[in-house]
Structures are given as C-alpha cells and as structure tokens.
C-alpha cells in the first residue's frame, strides 16, 4: 500500500511540473496514429485477455471489460 500511496503522490504532482506547454501547431508528431497510447487496439484486447486468463494480476489500463470464467 505504501508503494501505491507514493505513486499516487507522484501522479498528482506530475501536472505541476513546469513543462513548457506544447502548442497546437507543434502536435504534428503527437497526432500520428502511431503515437496513440494504444495504437494497436485489437492486439491489446487479445493480449489482455490471454494474460488475464494465465496470470494472477489484471487491470492498469482502464476499468471494466469482459469478465471471463477463465480466471
């Protein structure tokens, strides 16, 4: 739990970092499909289901999703 609280603090502090804001006309690279957080949605969905059924952990990327009798 300590680790989670530490990470919560880091997460909350992140937006406060003095990063120079990227302007709309500087988003050419960020707008590319390959720069999406999940660029391969099919692969990601299939992999998540495999690892959910083969390991003891789950979650991280989002909430909900299809339950399964496999685990």
């Amino acid at each position: 739990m300590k680790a989670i609280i530490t990470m919560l603090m880091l997460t909350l502090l992140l937006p406060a970092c003095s990063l120079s804001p990227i302007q709309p006309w500087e988003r050419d690279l960020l707008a590319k499909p390959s720069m999406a957080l999940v660029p391969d949605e099919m692969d990601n969905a299939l992999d998540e289901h495999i690892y959910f059924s083969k390991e003891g952990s789950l979650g991280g990327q989002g909430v909900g999703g299809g339950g399964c009798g496999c685990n």
Partner: protein
Amino acid sequence: MQLKKPANKQAKSTNFTSISGKLTLATCTLLQVTGQTAQASDDWDIQSALMIYSESDGRVSAIEPIVSAKKEIAEDEIVNVKLVLDSLTGATPNGAHASSAVQTFTNPSGNKSYTVQPGDNPLDDTFLDTRVALSGSWEMPILDNRSRIIYGANVSKEFDYMSLGASATFMRDYNNRNTTLSYALGVNADSIDPSGGIPTPFANMRAAGSGTNREGSGDSKSITDFMFGVTQVISRKTLMQFNLGFSNTSGYMNDPYKVITVIDPLTGLPTSSFTDPDDLPYVYENRPDSRSRQTFYWKTVHHLTEDVINVSYRYYTDDWDVSSHTVDFHYRYELSDGAYLQPHIRYYTQSAAEFYTHSLDFGETVEYASADYRLGELTTTTLGLKYAMPMGDNSEFSVRAEMINQSSNTVGTLVGDQLVQELAPDLDAVIFQVGYSFRW
C-alpha cells in the same frame, strides 16, 4: 488525450523549426479542424483480426476472431462496438500435482474418470468452451469543449459463465490540452453455473459414479473498479500516462474445476488414508470471498526520428498477497511506404498468494487453499514481432507472431515424492494473428 488525426496518415516527422514552417503547420491544423467540424464521417472504421493461440503439450488451443467498428456519429461523438468469439479446446491443469503413482480423477460432471500416468502433470482433457463477448462504448463531449465522457457496456457468455458490465470514464483537458485527467468507474456482475455444480470447499473429489460433493448449482460475484489517470504531453515527441486503479471483488472466486492433492506427509504421495474408498485424495479448493486490488500503471510513447517507442510498466498488489511487475515494450520500426515492423517484449513476474500451496497434508485444516498455478510464483516472458502494410488509402493488413514462456517456482516445503516430481512445470505457447482494418 484527444488528439486529432493528421490529414495524411503517414505524415513524416518534418521538423518545423522555422517561422514559416510553424505558420504553415498552424494553417493546416486550423483547416483540418474546420474540415472535421463541418462533417461527421459517414464511414465506419472497421478493425478485424483472427488469432490462433496454442499451448505446448496438448494444452489449451484457442481460435479467436474479433471485429470492431467505430464511427464518429457527430462532432467529437464516437461509438464503438466490438465482438469477440473465443473457441477453446485442449487440456488444462486440474490443480493436483504430478506423482510417482498412477492418479485417477473424475470429470466435473462426476460420471467419468480419467487417468494420469506417473510423472505427468494432471490435466483435465475435457476442457471445451466457447465464449462470445460483445462490448460497446459511446464517447461524447460534456459540459464544455474541454471535457468528454465515455460510457461503456459489455456482456460475455460462456456455457458456464456470464458477465455483465458497465463503465463511465470522465476526462477533462487542462494546461492548453497538454494535461488530461481521467476518472473512471466500472461495475461488473458475473455469475457461474459450473458443470456438475458448485463443489463443497475442501470436500473430496468422488470416484466416478459415486456422487459428487456439491453445495449448489451456481454462484456469483461483483466487481467494482475505480481508476484515476493523468495523461501529460511531455514534449513535441513524448506523451506520458499514469493510472492508479482500485478494484474490489466480492463473491464466489473459487475455480470449481480445481482440486488440491492431499498427501501422506511422510511419503509425499497422494494419501490412501481416507476411509471411504470413493473419496479420492483430492479436495476442492477454497479462496476468500473478497479481493481488493491496486494497480499503478505508467506508459510513455516517444517518437524518434521516424520510429516510435511504446513502453509501459505496471505494479500490481492485492490483499491475497499477490504482487506483480509487468514491463511491456514495443518498438515500431518504420519501413518504406507506410509499412512497419514492430518487435514486442513483455516481462511479467508475480509473487504467490498467501494461501497458494501444492498440496495439503492428510488431516491438515486451513481456512483457504488453492493449487491453481496462476496464484503461484511465476514469470512470463513474451517475444513477438508484427509486420503491417497499408493496402490502399484507408486499409491495413498485419500479421504477428508471439512466443510466450511461463515458468513457475515451487513454494513451501516439499516432502518425499514431491522432491522428485515437476510440481511447477513450464508452459510454452505461441500466438499467430492476422489482421485487416479498413474504412467502410
């Protein structure tokens, strides 16, 4: 993070350092936004894939077609529907461990037996299942142009399992759209009606045809998830995401098809001390009826000169004492004409649940126990490679292959015959997948 697609999907990483370059790009961006405002697309973006998953040693094989359709029905309003079919066959570990003795088990319905030879990992080869899962989401602006909400729903059905779920994710942009905060809530209601019914915890597996130790026909569990996330644009080339997840599950979490070997504490062999000869030396597992999980997830996407690195780390912990670390790495290597190669490496390691055990001693009483290897100490390593190429203006063909190795460690103190048996066998699996996406 809402990012508009560029007009040209294969936009090159031109470095706009000059004033004229910036003005040109700003003009293009404005024109692009105007164009998108004027029209919601009439087309559906379709993504489809067929995955074949195969484990070594005759264990589980799966064929899994998946199709997803996405459409912008109004300005910034997107619907997405996804259908998955999952057809599984093969053999799956029943929880008992290998032994020098021939072992006889009863199938879940209680009317047939199967035999496992000395030294072999006990597998139930009656495993057969088909799963259908349908999910949908609806994203729309809310409050103002800096906020949006995504409603989601999913239903999944197997012959012995049903899952219903709903979720809502609220996202708001700050800092000139360089920071996005996300708040997500999900609920799931699952029900299970296992073949043969719900086994009585710690009751013996019975010899075939001698009745079954069951306490009901079905049970249920509910899951509540909450997630808080921050997505931050770090630079023109770097995007970072942090998520914190909290999940609570309550209800039936046993695997009704898993047993635990009851051993003679001196020899390590399955005990022969049960007085009723129809009581086999295997008892059904029992897990707590609540589980609280927390996750921390970090992802960074970084654009190199042409290529893109996508790397993530997840820390997971729960009150069953399972904790894990996952590192996932994709490197998108751009080829000519929009094609790319993408190596993938994933490393996962977890600690065992506090009640995980390979066996119980005859006469031993515990509150909870499971020999499900997925709750044991294990490491998963994945190596993969994907190749994708455009097929015309708005379509793409891809193929990928992955190799998965899962190695488990023994836990606790082993005795007698257990010391010479493979109690934690490795698992090897391969994935082969073809995909095709197009606009329709």
